[in-house]
């Protein structure tokens, strides 16, 4: 979603986007298009086709790379999920006999529009991931990233098998237990101490807000669907009625057809500007938390190394080894701390800018739609009142 791309400078040296996408059975094929003046690439402009698993592979390679421990790794795009939409289309097909041809066509059109919307969203989210990487001063130079962009064969990245998935699961369990441990250690540095407290709470709140906004938007969509059905029935009533009131029915049916489109758009815009924003910052705040965890881990290692060195000196055994180890830990910790600080400051800047942009656009769209609705309602009322 380009709305979260706010602060990414359009840098002529490396520009990445998804120029095309194809939906097949259960996979989506993205055409990743790159324009670059960097000498690393054979050409200045080129495209490759990638699937979701390859994006995940790239993301995981960043996470597993020790060199990048001090950076907020851009969150992986979520898996394309057309299951719900497909299910609805299937149910519609099954229920074809029970509704009129117009109703069926209408519903089919809507479901197709919904499918298309989900499709566009997933493309946007994959694109945002790539743009974030391309905009990051260090990550953009990553070799895997270049391979991802340029290598025009299948990367043969198979999805994780069961065992690997279990390993991941346990890693996460250990990590969160660990995370608690690490979080408990009070940081000497005020900045990081504050960030820790902030991020922990913020992440939970964003998660809650994201879930609640989803539910709110779903209700909105349901209400719009109801208005659709009401419009259809009013139309039938209007065509069947031989009295004066048929005009009313037909006019109101027409009105509701239009207002429900607007209501559907309101729900869609809220989805884009609010729900997607919250979802994205849920993922980013998790990535920021992960960074803090890594730093915390490095701090614990450093402190342990210090203790080990003290013990070694006291016993006068393996002192050199302990000293080297301690130095390594110290360097690692300081390196992470330095870049982490900047990353977290950037994160805040990006976040504030993205929220500002989206909240402003949300308000503007809500106003636009409400005014549109109002105008339709008042004009219809005018006609009907004139008639009585």
């Amino acid at each position: 979603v380009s709305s979260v791309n706010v602060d990414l400078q359009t840098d002529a040296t490396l520009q990445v986007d998804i120029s095309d996408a194809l939906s097949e059975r259960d996979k989506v094929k993205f055409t990743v298009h790159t324009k670059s003046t960097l000498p690393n690439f054979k050409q200045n402009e080129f495209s490759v086709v990638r699937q979701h698993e390859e994006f995940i592979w790239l993301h995981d390679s960043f996470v597993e790379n020790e060199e990048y421990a001090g950076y907020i790794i851009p969150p992986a795009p979520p898996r394309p999920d057309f299951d719900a939409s497909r299910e609805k289309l299937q149910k519609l097909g099954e229920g074809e006999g029970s509704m009129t041809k117009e109703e069926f066509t209408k519903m089919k059109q809507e479901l197709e529009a919904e499918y298309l919307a989900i499709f566009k969203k997933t493309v946007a989210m994959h694109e945002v991931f790539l743009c974030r990487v391309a905009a990051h001063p260090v990550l953009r130079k990553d070799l895997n990233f270049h391979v991802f962009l340029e290598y025009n064969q299948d990367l043969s990245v198979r999805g994780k098998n069961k065992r690997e998935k279990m390993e991941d699961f346990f890693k996460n369990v250990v990590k969160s237990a660990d995370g608690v441990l690490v979080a408990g250690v009070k940081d000497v540095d005020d900045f990081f101490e504050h960030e820790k407290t902030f991020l922990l709470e913020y992440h939970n709140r964003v998660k809650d807000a994201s879930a609640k906004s989803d539910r709110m938007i779903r209700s909105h969509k349901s209400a719009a669907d109801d208005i659709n059905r009401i419009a259809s029935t009013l139309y039938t009533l209007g065509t069947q009625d031989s009295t004066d009131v048929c005009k009313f029915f037909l006019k109101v049916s027409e009105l509701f057809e239009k207002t429900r489109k607007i209501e559907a758009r309101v729900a869609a815009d809220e989805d884009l500007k609010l729900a997607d924003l919250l979802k994205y910052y849920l993922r980013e705040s998790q990535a920021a938390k992960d960074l803090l965890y890594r730093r915390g881990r490095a701090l614990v290692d450093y402190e342990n190394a210090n203790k080990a060195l003290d013990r070694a000196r006291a016993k006068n055994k393996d002192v050199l080894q302990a000293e080297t180890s301690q130095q390594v830990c110290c360097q690692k910790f300081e390196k992470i701390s330095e870049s982490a600080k900047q990353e977290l400051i950037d994160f805040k800047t990006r976040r504030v800018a993205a929220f500002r942009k989206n909240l402003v656009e949300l308000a503007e769209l809500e106003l636009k739609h409400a005014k549109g609705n109002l105008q339709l309602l008042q004009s219809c009322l005018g006609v009907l009142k004139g008639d009585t």
Partner: protein
Amino acid sequence: MAAEMEPPPLGDAGQTDFREIEDGEGFFVSTVTTLESPEPSSPDPPSMPAEGISTNGPKQEDISLDDDPEDLFAEATEEVSLDSPEREPILSDGPSPAITPVTPTAMLTPRMGLGTAEMFERSLDEIEEDDSGDTFDMHIAVSDPEKVGDGMNAYMGYKVTTKTSMTIFSKNETTVRRRFSDFLGLHSKLASRYLHIGYIVPPAPEKSIVGMTKVKVGKEDLSSAEFVEKRRSALERYLMRTVKHPILLKDPDVMMFLESSELPRAVSTQALSGAGILRMVNKAADAVNKMTIKMNESDAWFEEKHQQFENLDLQLRKLHASVECLVCHRKELSVNTASFAKSAAMLGNSEDHTALSRALSQLAEVEEKIDQLHQDQAYADFYLFSELLGDYVRLITAVKGVFDHRMKTWSKWQDTQLLLQKKREAESKLQFANKPDKLQQAQDEIKEEIEELEGKVQQGEKDFELISKTIRKEVSRFEKERVKDFKVVIIKYLESLVQTQQQLIKYWEAFLPEAKAIA
């Protein structure tokens, strides 16, 4: 269903649709089509003059001859084309231009065998003459629900206030207290008196064992309060509809209901009483009979109307169901919006950028106001739209009932005719009986029976004519009321929607500068 889709190929970098996501337009450009509904041509004036009334407005001359003193319904406002064999069917080519009000002359004599209803049947014109221009001016309010008693014997008492300037009432303003079973009792009396002769008696609100039990056991929660309010409103609408009917208004039971301080308790309205069971049995019997009566419909008007009401019934039920869904989803939306508002407030609290934190709190406030808005709108959806539809679904059932009674009346007439025919055959056969001394007695007996049956056949025919006439009038009145009701409610409903949008605009306009102020 093919779910695979290849979306339109996207152009190059600068032009992708995704940029358009920002203003929300991109998704829907291709799928928005304005629905151009065909402007309905005004319904063609049908050939049967009875139709002409509702669509074309101008009142038609009552062309029927009025010297029949038993013609109870020579009203100026209604035109009746009689299709009985005694009169020529009168077909006009279109709306007649001249409108001459016909003033009836005769005071009506009660017809035998039709009960006490006729004693109070006076044409509207007559009333106008007697009471010097007493137009319908009446307002009934049902209010102040109060629980009386405790436990399972408790009940809800309602205050019924009648305000009127009509002189048939003894006072300008009367207040009485009534309970739900009183209303049911009133309806039961009116139904038994008027339904079978073709009057559309408005149905009473439905019983609800669950709802009432909650109230009886003293559950003081939101759903009980809602139930009581729903019932109060329904009772009010029921009374208003009943008194709007010019015949029912004059019924002594109606007047007693509105005016007398004490009413005998209506016990036969209880669902499981003897009368209740009898009603259920009768209903079942009716359903069976309906299936077996095959009526020779000579009057196209009735056939057409019957079909129209069937269609209307179907569509109104559908519409009612959809509106009930809408009410439900809007209530859900209100709850979810409130929930989101709280969540947004919490998010704002934890946000450490001051300006953004403030904006998020403002967003939370806006959403809280909006949730109240949704709740109010759901209320309007229900009380304006949904309840009207529910009322009409029940009313149409009463209309269909009246059509069925006509069928039964016809059937009875035909049966009597058949019986007469059989007797006549039997009479002629008597000539060939071989007991001459018993012959005279048998002949006298059968002559008596035949005379009686001839009278009954005549009566049956008159009853059928009468109910047909009544139904035509009733349907015309009903359609007028329906048109009025729907027009009024639709406008009120749209106005409620307008209000909601206006409020929304206010709230978002107040929020926008706050969002822009994030620095």
